[in-house]
């Protein structure tokens, strides 16, 4: 079997007024087809940086990143844009819905530029929001907004689904619904899924749990059984 995403010796440094910050410091990683990976780690440990690199939002300072046989480390803006457009679904901590578009339109925003997308309604149905299709973000609760964001991320049938603290702004109840939606998408669409969280309990959902600290992956363990979101203790 070949990994979907592969990182080798990746570092990412930021130049700031106070000197150089090394957000990632030599990361090797492979993500396998259909795998659900949970990223844990203290604030500032480099989780978001890692996810951004996997999603083609950013390029490493040194090291290599490949999506199948595409080189993501040296891609120009156009090729990275194409990679994101065709293969990646994002879910952000702050939802990032367009307030001027309804739930369905927010999903359509992505399906319009995708190759073989789900119908926006079906994508919303996947996260249990079919009846709220014509609501604007301001008319939805935080959890509902995040589920719309998930529908938007999965509507293109991505090969890679990346979620940065998808439940970070939500309470336990809604957080569970959101995780359920991600879990379901991972199972039904077989997308490689990476989820960042501060909540160790969520780790039980994944096939594999990576723990980061100071820009490195310091611990890795595999769950024998994946828990289901409904049964999570928050």
């Amino acid at each position, binding site marked *: 079997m070949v990994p979907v995403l592969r990182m080798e010796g990746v570092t990412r440094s930021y130049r700031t007024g106070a000197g150089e910050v090394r957000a990632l410091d030599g990361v090797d990683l492979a993500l396998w087809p259909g795998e659900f990976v949970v990223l844990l780690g203290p604030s500032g440990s480099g989780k*978001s940086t890692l*996810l*951004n690199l996997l*999603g083609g*939002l*950013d390029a490493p300072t040194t090291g290599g990143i490949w999506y199948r046989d595409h080189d993501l480390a040296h891609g120009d*803006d*156009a090729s990275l*844009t*194409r*990679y*994101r*457009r*065709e293969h*990646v679904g*994002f879910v*952000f*901590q*702050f939802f*990032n*819905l*367009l307030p*001027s*578009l309804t739930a369905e*339109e927010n999903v*359509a*925003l*992505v399906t*319009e*530029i995708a190759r073989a997308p789900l119908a926006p309604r079906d994508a919303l149905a996947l996260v249990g929001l079919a009846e709220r299709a014509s609501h604007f973000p301001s008319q939805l609760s935080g959890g509902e907004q995040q589920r719309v964001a998930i529908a*938007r991320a999965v509507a293109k049938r991505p090969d890679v689904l990346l979620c*940065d603290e998808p439940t970070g702004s939500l309470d336990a109840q809604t957080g569970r619904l959101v995780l359920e939606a991600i879990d379901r998408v991972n199972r039904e669409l077989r997308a490689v899924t990476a989820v960042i969280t501060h909540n160790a309990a969520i780790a039980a959902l994944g096939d594999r749990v990576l723990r980061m600290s100071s820009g490195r992956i310091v611990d890795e363990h595999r769950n024998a059984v994946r828990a289901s979101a409904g049964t999570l203790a928050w």
Partner: protein
Amino acid sequence: MRTLRRALRRDLVRMAAQVATAALVVACGVAVLAGMFGTWQALARAQREFYADARFADVFASLTRAPRAVEATLAAVDGVAAVRARVAVDVVLDVPGLAEPASGRLVGVRVDAPEPLNRVVLRAGRLPAPRRAGEAVASEAFAQAHGLRPGDAVGAVIGGRLWALVVVGIGLSPEFVYEIAPGALVPDARHFGVLWMDEDALAAASGRDGAFNDVALALAPGARAEQVVADVDALLAPYGGRGAYGRDDHVSHRYLTDEIAQNRVTATWLPAVFFAVAAFLVAVTLGRLVAMQRLQIGALRAFGYTRGEVAAHYASFALAIVAVGGVAGLAAGTGLGALLTRLYRDFYRFPELAFRLDAELLAVVAAALAAVAVAGAAGASARVAALAPADAMRPPTPPVYRAGRLLPRLPASARMVARALARRPFASAAGVAGIAVGLALLVVGFYFRDALEVLLHAQFEMARREDVAVVFREPSGPQALHALARLPGVTRVEGERAEPVRVAAGHRVRRTVLVGVAPDDELARLLDRHGRAVPLPAQGVLLSAKLAEGLYVRPGAAVDVELLGGTRRAGRVVVAGLVDDWTGLALWAPREVVDRLAGEGPRFTGARLRADRDALADLYRSLKETPGLAAVALREQTVATFRAILDRSFALSAAIDVGFACLIAFGLVYNGARVALSERAAELATLRVLGFTRAETAGLLLGEQAVITLAAIPLGMALGAALAAWFATRLSTELYRIPFVVTSSTLGLAALVTLASAVASGALVGWRVRAFDLIGVLKARE
């Protein structure tokens, strides 16, 4: 993309007020551009076509009298393509229904063969029948001012005899597009008109059988006007030639050409002001939108929308504003253009003067709109394109404020305002500049009115104080003055001798008049710029300051004066002083000095009369029948005409100026306050939660705009005064001068109007603070 377009539409609706403000300013710019540029085009086109169709001449000359045979000699001059020698005389007219006398210019016209030059275009009726002295074609302006129709009669004293001229037609000529009496400040169609009569009949009636006293010539292609002027001049000198001149010195042509040139300038810079303000408003509105939607932009990029697609999305926001403003502006501009051309039709008479929304005009408007869109969208679109998609993953960084050294001493609220201003120095400065420009426009608009009031006062109350001025048909002796003194009600008569001269200093030459006056004249005073009388020197001449400027001479220098017409005697005289007069270029000297220079005298070419007010009606009646007068000018009537024109043209332009200035101030303040409101809603809501009153909160919101407005007011006043000074210099031509005056009431009114619009828009935004949904604002993350 469809969904992205939908988002655009909704953003436009959500920011409707700001979008509308920017679109309105765009619309004003387009309206002014289309209206004024179109009017300029219309005038230029009308001039071009009329001159070509009616074969407007290139060189002109008048003389005392020459035999017809000289026409052939003139035709043989190198560079002359066509000649038209004719009779033209100035007479006093008695128009039915007009108590006072009017002045007229009778021009001979060929009725049996087509005119080679300066053709009369008939608007109604027909040309006079051959050799019928009793028939005339009246100029359109004159006919309209009196409601003359074919069949009506006008009395004219020609060659000492009173004629009843039957108007058989109404006409126009390229020579009299701007029909203004010689030496007048403004056209007065009630008191001055042109009448065309059969050439031979006019020659016979005025005692010029077989002779001519006026000539027009067309240049052959490639001929040099100066050379032809010199040759014609030399040729006509023995016949009392008063100096040939080219189109540049032709009064109607000069006024028209100056007006067209001025129009072109105004049609450029005035819209440019609006477009600059509009581009700024678009940039601010769009910049705000981009700042607010930073996370959305990042998200779009993360989903795989390209840089170009996202930048284009925001650029189309600017395009939408510009398109809406453009369409509205074109509609308004068409109306403005039609209105302006209609106003012009009263002063400039063409067979056709029509505003047209043609391809060229549309192209100019489109180019201007494109410039606004690019200028307005460039900054924001570039920022959008440069935004790293990874930013979408991060919450927005709070704005960077600077502490500033002076600030700690100020109260916290003032510190907030100061930092808000300092955080966007460009936007703050542009806001100040925009409001200042709006105010300056207003100052300039009011300035023209003030200037013309001052001019009216200076010319007709300070300098000229006669009731009636007359011009004699021929230079006359003192008995002519005695005859005038015997007219009913006349209490004072002052004679003058005005001789056409060529005055030269080195290679600089002007054609003008030398006026012989008396030191004790009361009715025409020679004043300097402070209104003080300039003493008439025993030796030497006084020069119009504008003439001295044109000749580059100062008091003490000498100029060469050559009398044109008659003897052509010449002499060198010293410039003894300068007179700040308002029209034309003249020289003055004691009348005896002029007599001596001419080698004959005493002679008078005209006189000024003062009369009893009660006897004016009688005086007017007698003047209509007095033989030997070529023209009559009535001060009271001139002032009334001047004032009517002032009131009519300025009512409209003042309304437009005030409207524009209000819109600019309102738009800029409104936009700035809305941006501040949306940026700082959370901050302000926090203050409300902390216990600040609504008024205090609104004060913090609007403080920034208040500072901008208050800073703009003195700047706008200074800019307005500078612009007015610039106009005063630019518009001070050799034909007339416009004084520079900026009154405190003009400045005050302009400031008041600006302040009022700023306060109105501030109040409108401040009102929103009242309606703050405190919980909603605090809940929102941004």
